[in-house]
């Protein structure tokens, strides 16, 4: 069964069209991640799904029922806001418990669920503080906890981890994945983080300027991007695009090669010199300027000693390269 169906959703703020003809299905228990540039309408789409914003046209159905006229609370959703939106007058515990109390859950259930969330989010020490006495990351965890305790059918997360530190982010990410598995709830998740998108998603939705560019599993999008935008948006560092490519391209076409698919070789089709080296510990990125003055990134596994200024030659496996036409659409081989 489908957990959520969006049909021809449009949304304008005044004369600004923010969402344009969005169609999307989320299956029961599916984990869908929205990605897209800042301002492309991700939050707005979440708000339309939540019922906090009315679509200008189109229908939203949750669990098979059209919910255009159903108030947010009755949609069986929970939402984590990008701005946290904590209740400033309530302690951490009460922030989480309020929704449950509203549902008239017995105290034991409330205590248990809140206790579990607190545990999971490592908030034990702060349980009686108010939001104003918490750090940014702590606030964000409270906001996540507030959604978790409600155990809804559909979770809406708006960049829930953006303020967490790496360790906590990883933990929480794994917890969310686990939550997803155990609750078998559907989840819609907005993020800017490649790792989150790739690891969590069953399905990634790439949005751009209020339009859906492509929908698919992470590997599908990674390996088969429909167009240059998607190809460039997924993957970090981003895919390299070359105009003056060593292979056959249509007029004004572009060649796309992912940084990890470029190999340092003695003799290669691409020549250039290193302009900058980013050492990340686990891997190293070389920023290269080609003979044609195009910029490239090369991703090397492990720590590399190539120095800035070094002249290098690069090559790649044609099978792993992508070709885009003048309209930036992918040319399939």
């Amino acid at each position, binding site marked *: 069964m489908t957990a959520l169906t969006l049909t021809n959703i449009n949304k304008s703020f005044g004369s600004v069209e923010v969402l344009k003809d969005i169609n999307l299905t989320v299956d029961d228990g599916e984990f869908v991640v929205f990605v897209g540039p800042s301002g492309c309408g991700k939050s707005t789409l979440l708000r339309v799904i939540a*019922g906090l*914003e*009315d679509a200008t046209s189109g229908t939203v159905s949750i669990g098979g029922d059209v*919910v255009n*006229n159903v*108030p947010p609370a009755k949609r069986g959703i929970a939402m984590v806001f*990008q701005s*946290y939106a904590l209740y400033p007058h309530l302690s951490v515990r009460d922030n989480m418990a309020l929704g449950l109390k509203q549902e008239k859950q017995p105290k034991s259930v409330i205590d248990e669920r809140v206790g579990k969330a607190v545990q999971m989010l490592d908030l034990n020490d702060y349980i009686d503080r108010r939001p104003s006495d918490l750090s*940014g990351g702590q606030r964000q965890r409270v906001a996540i906890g507030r959604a978790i305790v409600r155990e809804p059918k559909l979770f809406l997360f708006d960049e829930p981890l953006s303020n967490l530190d790496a360790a906590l982010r990883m933990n929480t990410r794994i917890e969310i994945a686990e939550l997803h598995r155990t609750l078998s709830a559907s989840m819609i998740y907005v993020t800017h983080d490649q790792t989150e998108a790739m690891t969590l998603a069953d399905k990634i939705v790439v949005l751009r300027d209020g339009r859906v560019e492509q929908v698919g599993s992470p590997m599908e999008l990674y390996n088969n991007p429909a167009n240059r935008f998607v190809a460039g948006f997924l993957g970090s560092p981003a895919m390299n695009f070359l105009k003056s490519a060593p292979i056959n391209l249509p007029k004004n076409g572009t060649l796309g090669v992912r940084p990890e698919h470029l190999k340092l070789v003695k003799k290669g089709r691409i020549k250039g010199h290193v302009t900058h080296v980013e050492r990340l510990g686990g891997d190293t990125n070389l920023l290269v300027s080609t003979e044609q003055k195009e910029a490239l990134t090369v991703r090397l596994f492990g720590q590399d000693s190539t120095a800035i200024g070094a002249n290098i030659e690069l090559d790649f496996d044609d099978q792993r390269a992508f070709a885009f036409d003048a309209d930036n659409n992918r040319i399939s081989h």
Partner: protein
Amino acid sequence: MNAARQNRLNSFAAHGALILYTLIALFPVFVIVINSFKTRKAIFREPLALPNSDSFSLIGYETVLKQGDFFLYFQNSMIVTVGSLFFILLFGAMAAFALAEYRFKGNTLMGLYLALGIMIPIRIGTVAILEMMVQTGLVNTLWALILVYTAQGLPLAVFILSEFMRQVSDDLKNAGRIDGLSEYRIFFRLVLPLVRPAMATVAVFNMIPIWNDLWFPLIIAPAEEVKTLTLGSQVFIGQFVTDWNAVLSALSLAILPVMALYVVFSRQLIRGITSGAVK
């Protein structure tokens, strides 16, 4: 209207309650206004009836416009009200900001000192005030009234505004500090615009007693050229005979300018004025 979020029933109930209360609020005003257009006999024979061809009369308005320089009074009232409000808001907001923003010795005491004024009716200080005005030669000037009303309005303004100013995000003020804004500019450029709803509220609160005050105009500025509207309308209330037509007309006329001022200020009651400031 947002279909998903708005329960039709609730919105009916809300409108119902508001309409009911609006009727309660307006009914007496309605009585006053319709009666100001009637002859004296009709006012008292059938106070609830609308003016009809028989009972319609502009006699009250004619009397009002004939007696005294109504437009001058009007202008005086405006100057006094707007002038006082300006100083109340400016000085009051400044003091409120100092109290809300800075921790300094005597902060609480200063707050209490500035609040003392709302605890005693200023009227009992009339003689001393009048003496002061006589000595400074301010008697029978609009400045005298402006000064008195400013002093009278300050305590309340400070009290309310400091409460609202505490709600302005610290990060925001700090951002201003780092941007090199002086404390003065932080006040004028950041805090003042953000407490506009509170300023409007204070303005409205203060405008009413100032506009309607009879006492101080009567005592410190009774001269013809500085008479206020309220004082001017008072002419129609006699010892034994009251010209009800004129009183009702004058009062109906006097509602309009305050109403206009109110509308001006209440525009500042803007939803979510701080939204988007902080995450």
